[in-house]
């Protein structure tokens, strides 16, 4: 990965304290897993930023390598990977996600 791409990835992750990399956008998700995470975040009511990885193939592939995480969606809090759809749903069902995201 080039330094320029790595820098662009860290800058993009830093765009929001809670940052969702997804297929599509929150009002029109292009994938059921992305839609599920958007729905949970809206239910919790935390503000979040999002990035449509379908619109940027270079960042889409680069972020997989950067985070050693091969699939989307990916949810970040303060620059750290919280997880994909399974982990987000699991944390939410255990009542831990709201606390984690609002800390």
């Amino acid at each position, binding site marked *: 990965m080039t330094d320029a791409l790595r820098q662009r990835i860290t800058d993009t992750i830093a765009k929001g304290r809670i940052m969702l990399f997804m297929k599509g956008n929150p009002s029109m998700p292009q994938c059921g897993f992305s839609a599920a995470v958007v729905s949970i975040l809206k239910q919790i009511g935390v503000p979040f930023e999002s990035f449509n990885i379908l619109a940027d193939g270079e960042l889409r592939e680069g972020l997989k390598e950067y985070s050693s*995480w091969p699939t989307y969606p990916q949810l970040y809090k303060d620059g750290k990977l919280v997880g994909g759809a*399974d982990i987000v749903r699991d944390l939410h069902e255990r009542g831990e996600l709201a606390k984690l995201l609002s800390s």
Partner: protein
Amino acid sequence: MTPDDLSARIRAALPDAIVRVTDTTGGGDHFAATVVSAAFAGKGPVDRHRLVYAALGEAIIGSAAPIHALALTTFTPDEQGART
């Protein structure tokens, strides 16, 4: 990709793993897997998933990878015992 292929790849990297895989759509590209392994002990969910993703390697990395989606549930043997 078949569920058996996917299980075999995971077990090659995590030899103690008990793996149950289902093809969720019948199309050979969307799967759900439950993996029980002592290798998950002391690890959070993100690192557990990374272990399984690393085991799958090129089968899940990249836009041409045969696995498009993998819903993953992980347990250590102790956690699995506590559930049953």
